[in-house]
């Protein structure tokens, strides 16, 4: 593709706008993953260590929710945040806040399901030890999450990947408003619809570059702290 070069120079020219859009994408998805982690990691760990009659069913449901279609999540969040919906008074619809809410909902099942598996695997070895130390459930969760801090990074990164790459939910609840809720993915979609495929691909590559920087940073931090406890 000869015009990809042009597209990149176009990106360069648009730099102010493009940077703002990239920064919004990053801000929204990082917030969603942070919020999601606070909820889903303890929850996933809890599900890994408790036993109760319906447990396999709950596990299957959490796993299944990894397949929540972003558009559906978008629609449901939309109906909740709509002025005529139950949370309409918050005035969040078509704002970055709404996008954070929608992406948090998408991130939670992925984080919870992956955390559950990773904790469950380690728990098989540590269960009796931790119970014999008379740790209560929350203490055991804290210890297991700490024990697995390096492994859980991958769950967080998977959730971040899902959040920053999805377009269905942010489009519905954010509205792709120029200069306000336009993210990298909605911009890519828009350029694709305009038939400007080189620009769309250039934006896509920029997005992947941003994701690479985030992942590279996470990897480096992980490697640095892991050094001590191989």
């Amino acid at each position, binding site marked *: 593709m000869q015009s990809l070069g042009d597209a990149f120079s176009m990106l360069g020219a648009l730099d102010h706008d493009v940077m703002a859009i990239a920064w919004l994408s990053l801000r929204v998805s990082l917030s969603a993953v942070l919020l999601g982690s606070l909820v889903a990691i303890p929850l996933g760990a809890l599900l890994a260590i408790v036993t109760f009659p319906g447990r396999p069913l709950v596990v299957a449901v959490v796993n299944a929710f990894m397949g929540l279609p972003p558009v559906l999540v978008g629609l449901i969040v939309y109906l909740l945040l709509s002025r005529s919906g139950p949370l309409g008074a918050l005035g969040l619809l078509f704002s970055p806040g709404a996008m954070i809410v929608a992406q948090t909902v998408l991130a939670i099942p992925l984080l919870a399901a992956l955390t559950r598996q990773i904790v469950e695997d380690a728990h098989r070895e540590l269960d009796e030890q931790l119970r014999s130390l008379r740790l209560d459930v929350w203490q055991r969760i804290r210890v297991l999450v700490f024990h697995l801090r390096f492994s859980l990074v991958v769950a967080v990164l998977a959730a971040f990947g899902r959040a920053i790459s999805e377009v269905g939910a942010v489009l519905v609840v954010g509205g792709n408003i120029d200069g*306000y809720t336009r993210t990298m993915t909605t911009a890519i979609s828009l350029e*694709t619809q305009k*038939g400007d*495929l080189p620009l769309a691909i250039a934006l896509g590559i920029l997005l992947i570059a941003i994701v690479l920087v985030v992942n590279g940073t996470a990897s480096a931090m992980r490697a640095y702290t892991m050094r001590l406890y191989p």
Partner: protein
Amino acid sequence: SSITVASTTSTEQSGLFGHLLPRFTGRTGIEVRVVALGTGQALDVGRRGDADVVFVHDRAAEEKFVAEGHGVNRVEVMYNDFVIAGPKSDPAKAAGSDILQALQRIAATEQPFISRGDRSGTHAAELRYWQAAGIDIADAGGDWYREIGQGMGPALNMASASNAYVLSDRGTWLSFKNRGELAILVEGDRRLFNQYGVMLVNPEKHPDVQATEGQAFIDWLVSDEGQQAIGDYRIDGQQLFFPNAGATQISQ
């Protein structure tokens, strides 16, 4: 202060709002946030009170919207026109200025035709043209007629990738970059005119609606300054939208 306008993807993608809004905001200080959606979805957003102003192009649906009390004071702002784009080689020999004849030829030769199939204003118009041409599309059979259920851009993308005919609004066509072998084959038929209307979401139903600011936007659009700005917008020297506020209704 800021208002939210629910509009169509074709208007947004043509770049018209990028041209108009800075002028409006410069004059009034009101910021406008445009949510570009399918016409059906745009009206639905208005119905729920999530936008202050709705700016679309499907007269029948707009009038229903107002009649049901969701909107007030529909005013006509501008029109543009539809064109049929198709492969330059024109295997169906559809080129000309008669939309109905063109469709009949495409159907007769069973050349691939891409329909948006998304119940948008453009899709509604397309269905009207088929009906007027005496072709029952539901019965057409064969795989030459493809409903893709997507916006204008994707329909053009697919037509360009598969050398098919497609009905497009001129604005989207002019700003569309991935034309491939496509060219405009049919244009200029008065029946191809496409009227845009704007209306304020009913503040009595939805108290959160910014009625004053929304009305200011509508007033500006139909003011001389707004109409002038619409008429000034061009891509490659071609005018995309023709202001006609206050003019008598354009026959469809």
